[in-house]
């Protein structure tokens, strides 16, 4: 037994060897820091196997919640599972108070800077800031000068990246004022970790995060104006391709905002409006996750496709609150850092409590001399990181490269800063079944209301992927950690929904449906149904094709495979000139129709399209629904062979049924559900017709049609047997599949459902609205015309009639697109300047 460590945690820390720098968990002598002892002992009690199990549990939860982030330049896997370490970062209450104080002071200082830059603009004139520091940074937006701050706040949201220096003091590595990201991930990390380590979390007396979420809501309400009604807030996202799109959807749903893209918005009468199916609805505030420069192509970047022309004018008129204001990134400027201590004294009359990483602005002659003499020890950064320029580590440069850099600095000194390389502190991280030290950075979050700032008691900790890496970034494979600020005494559990101070007016809204959203919901419904139709017909075809003894003699297999091609729409396939050869060896084609993501019509293709459509309206689905969607994606991953395809198709159909059930049972019957349901019904009608056309070619002999399979694919065997018992009668099967109003899979059932769904559609102009109804009436007439007095006959007119029906249903889809899914047109510039 070693004397230097208390007994319990020692095993867990065996082999934990932090380097020379500061370690969050153990003192230089190897003894655990006091505030880690409880956690270490508890983890020790769990044991490595159990901890590994909890880690897997956390991953499962994250996957089911759909917590992802996108990696740029990675076409293979653009969406990655959010990585969370099961070991939290611990910060004692007393230290946190000091951090909080420093962060609030810094936010206040940066806000005063913004107040000046976009107000009287005296700091430059008074000589407190060199003009180049302000004007050479792209974040300073001249058109924003004079635009009033919402609720008087120029920096409602602020985040700071903190690192711990070797002496244990924290310093700020960078300021985030544009549209700080990460708070949503931090909340999600907490949600997951508190559930996989419940007793540990409970007994550690951790400061709770929900109050911060409430603070964000209060901020939005306070800054959105003094309307009596609940303000209408949208969260403006660049779209599903953005790195942190998950967070946009997560926050929109937690904060009760509408998730909107630029095309959903328009400025009229110096107000911002959301285009919904019911028409324009005014927007009081925008929580933006689009960079300011891209938000208004009239006054800011003219080449932006993510912006709303006139937005800045609406803000100037004081009629929309932009959070943060569009010029806020002016303080995301490393050249400001050397000036902050003096500015703090001048503007606040206080010393800066939380230091910045040591920074030299090369526009200052003395600083420049120092930098040029110490290039090898420093990190050199362009002050404006918007272009192609990036940070460089001086010691990584060859002598000629260093010379070239020195020349670039000499030519435009004001455009560069150099910073000290902070040896990051390390935090214990669970790697391959044991604790290892990893370099870490902590992002902290602040939100203002009219009175002041509140700090999220916690944050987003990120650690480096490898022992020697000092680069901590999700884009480069970093891992995140929950941050536990240890309270001195337990806090009451508080949920997100708290009793409102004033009774809230009954909100029948929350139903704003932009055309883009209606469009994506419609296609979510269609692709879910298409995947199901393809899976059903493929399952039946595979069942018969994989029966190697019987398949060569199965007279119906060719017809069934032909129907596979019809339902998937993957022509020519089993219906084309090459059909005889394909029918002889159908495996490759069947495999492609199951798994090939590039093959239009394949199950995989439909599932991908379903995921894309659903992702674009992610905030509209419950966690459970999202979990099913995630499972659907995984079901059809590797390996791509036919051996277990039948079982996988079974599971897929169950999941699709779960998706259908969840949307039927848990979506309120508003417009969103309506469009999802219309898509589903329309697709089911189209697929049912396609299957019949595939199985009953014009002039086919009744005996050549695999009626049993028809009934299996249409999920109608049981009904049929109960009614008719006898062997297959074409007229009876066709009646059941086409004309039976009580069969939920018959074509006529879909048309009747559509009729009822169309009744509830509002919005579009009367002329547009009648188009799909007229088409639907024609379709019903077409369907009924086909029924002869003695039932349907399997003749040439059947196929022709079904063909016409197919065209009418396709036309309904187009009519809906015209009337409801019209996206905001792309704006164009009258003059192209740069």
């Amino acid at each position, binding site marked *: 037994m070693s004397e230097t460590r208390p007994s319990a945690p020692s095993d867990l820390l065996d082999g934990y060897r932090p380097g020379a720098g500061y370690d969050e968990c153990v003192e230089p002598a190897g003894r655990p820091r006091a505030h880690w002892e409880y956690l270490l002992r508890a983890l020790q009690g769990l044991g490595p196997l159990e901890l590994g199990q909890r880690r897997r549990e956390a991953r499962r939860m994250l996957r089911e919640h759909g917590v992802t982030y996108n990696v740029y330049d990675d076409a293979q896997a653009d969406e990655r599972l959010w990585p969370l370490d099961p070991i939290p970062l611990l910060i004692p209450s007393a230290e946190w108070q000091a951090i909080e104080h420093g962060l609030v002071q810094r936010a206040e200082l940066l806000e005063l800077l913004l107040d000046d830059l976009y107000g009287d603009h005296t700091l430059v004139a008074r*000589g407190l800031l060199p003009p180049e520091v302000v004007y050479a940074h792209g974040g300073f937006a001249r058109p924003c000068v004079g635009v009033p701050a919402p609720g008087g706040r120029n920096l409602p949201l602020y985040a700071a990246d903190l690192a711990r220096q070797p002496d244990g003091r924290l310093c700020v590595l960078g300021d985030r004022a544009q549209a700080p990201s990460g708070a949503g991930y931090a909340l999600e990390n907490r949600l997951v970790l508190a559930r996989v380590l419940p007793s540990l979390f409970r007994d550690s007396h951790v400061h709770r995060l929900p109050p911060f979420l409430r603070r964000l809501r209060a901020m939005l309400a306070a800054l959105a104006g003094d309307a009596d009604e609940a303000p209408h807030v949208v969260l403006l996202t660049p779209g599903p391709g953005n790195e942190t799109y998950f967070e946009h959807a997560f926050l929109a749903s937690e904060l009760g905002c509408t998730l909107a893209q630029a095309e959903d918005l328009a400025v009229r009468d*110096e107000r911002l409006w959301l285009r919904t199916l019911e028409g324009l609805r005014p927007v009081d505030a925008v929580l933006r996750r689009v960079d300011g420069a891209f938000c208004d192509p009239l006054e800011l970047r003219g080449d932006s496709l993510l912006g709303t022309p*006139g937005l800045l004018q609406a803000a100037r*008129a004081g009629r929309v609150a932009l959070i943060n204001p569009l010029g806020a990134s002016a303080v995301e400027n490393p050249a400001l850092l050397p000036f902050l201590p003096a500015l703090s004294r001048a503007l606040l009359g206080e010393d800066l409590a939380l230091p910045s990483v040591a920074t030299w602005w090369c526009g200052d002659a003395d600083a420049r001399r120092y930098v040029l003499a110490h290039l090898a020890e420093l990190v050199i950064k362009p002050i404006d990181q918007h272009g192609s320029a990036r940070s460089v580590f001086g010691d990584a440069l060859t002598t000629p490269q260093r010379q070239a850099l020195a020349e670039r600095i000499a030519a435009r000194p004001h455009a560069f800063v150099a910073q000290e390389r902070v040896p990051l502190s390390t935090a214990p991280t669970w790697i391959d079944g044991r604790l290892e030290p990893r370099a870490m950075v902590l992002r902290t979050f602040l939100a203002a209301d009219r009175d002041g700032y509140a700090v999220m008691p916690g944050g987003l900790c990120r650690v480096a992927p490898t022992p020697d890496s000092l680069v901590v970034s999700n884009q480069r494979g970093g891992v995140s950690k929950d941050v536990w600020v240890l309270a001195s005494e337990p806090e009451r559990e508080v949920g997100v929904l708290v009793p409102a101070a004033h009774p809230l007016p009954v909100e029948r809204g929350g139903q704003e449906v932009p055309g883009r959203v209606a469009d994506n919901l419609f296609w979510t419904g269609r692709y879910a149904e298409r995947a199901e139709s393809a899976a059903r017909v493929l399952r039946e075809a595979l069942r018969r094709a994989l029966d190697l003894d019987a398949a060569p003699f199965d007279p119906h297999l060719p017809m069934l495979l032909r129907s596979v091609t019809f339902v998937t729409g993957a022509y020519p396939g089993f219906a084309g000139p090459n059909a005889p050869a394909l029918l002889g060896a159908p495996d490759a084609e069947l495999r492609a129709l199951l798994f090939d993501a590039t093959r239009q019509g394949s199950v995989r293709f439909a599932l991908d399209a379903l995921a894309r459509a659903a992702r674009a309206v992610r905030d509209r689905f419950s966690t459970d629904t999202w979990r099913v969607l995630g499972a659907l994606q995984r079901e059809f991953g590797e390996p791509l062979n036919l051996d277990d395809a039948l079982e996988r198709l079974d599971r897929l159909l169950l999941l699709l049924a779960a998706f259908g059930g969840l949307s039927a049972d848990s979506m309120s019957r508003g417009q969103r559900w309506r469009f999802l349901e219309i898509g589903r019904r329309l697709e089911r009608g189209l697929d049912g017709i396609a299957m019949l056309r595939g199985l009953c070619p014009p002039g086919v002999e009744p005996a050549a049609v695999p009626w049993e399979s028809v009934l299996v694919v249409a999920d109608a065997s049981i009904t049929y047997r109960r009614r008719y018992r006898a062997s297959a009668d074409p007229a009876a099967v066709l009646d059941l599949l086409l004309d039976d109003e009580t069969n939920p899979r018959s074509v006529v059932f879909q048309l009747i459902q559509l009729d009822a769904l169309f009744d509830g559609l509002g919005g579009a102009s009367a002329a547009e609205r009648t188009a799909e109804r007229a088409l639907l009436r024609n379709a019903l007439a077409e369907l009924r015309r086909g029924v002869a007095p003695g039932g349907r006959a399997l003749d040439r007119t059947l196929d022709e009639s079904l063909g016409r029906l197919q065209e009418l249903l396709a036309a309904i889809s187009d009519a809906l697109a015209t009337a409801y899914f019209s996206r905001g047109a792309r704006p164009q510039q009258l*003059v192209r300047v740069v």
Partner: protein
Amino acid sequence: MRYRVVHTTRYAYGAPVVLAHNEARLQPRATARQACALSQVTIDPLPAVVATREDFFGNRVLYFALQDAHDRLVVTASSEVEVAAPAPVALDAGPSWEAARARLASPDEAEARAARQFVLDSPCAAAGADVRAYAEPSFVAERPLLAAVADLSARIHRDFRFDPESTTVATPVSEVLAQRHGVCQDFAHLAIACLRAMGLPARYVSGYLETLPPPGQPRLQGADVSHAWFAVHAPGIGWVDFDPTNDLLPDERHVTTAWGRDYADVTPLKGVIFGGGAHTLEVAVDMVRLDD
């Protein structure tokens, strides 16, 4: 000299425009030697929203929005302006260009601090190595600043062919430099980039220049055009204008509308429209002397 300037911009759209947001910088600003007694902008069709303000550089900005479908836009700015002749400038007096540059860096001069933002690159006038190479022959050691700038302006006039067909407003300075021809915006941008390459503050000025008909011929209506030139900041003197297109120092025949870092800051009429298809554009400027 007193003028009436009528500047008409006419867009005809191939398809209806359903929503348009626009900004006009068409109304002459007041300057030390220019007063604008009367200025109005008429817009056809009638806009739903009109708002005026001053921008960061003190220019007059008119924002307007058209919110009903329309197939044309006609913006007519009519102004009466009185321009005084500038005080004579002694090009060979004043500090050398090196001394002027050094004074900029001095932390005590508020005026210099205000000018320093105009040393920095801007979207349409960025200083590259090619620009600096072109500029350097004018900036021989110890030459008085204004003499060096006048020489630069004269060289641009001499080396570059005025060719109204040759460029759009979006021509990068390097391209103009390589092609050796352009329009007044290009020459102004080139001169500005040259000055910035030498570490000197330069700004872009947009406005009008009275054109006189050849002797004995009547003045043609609408034959005038909008014009552009540049100004350099000289310590102790202030901003001094130069017109490289005509190789002269702007006088009372130059009416100033607006200034900024480059054309992008002072675009006379810009807009973002929804719909519209292809469009055609006609611009006519009439500049008439009101003096008798």
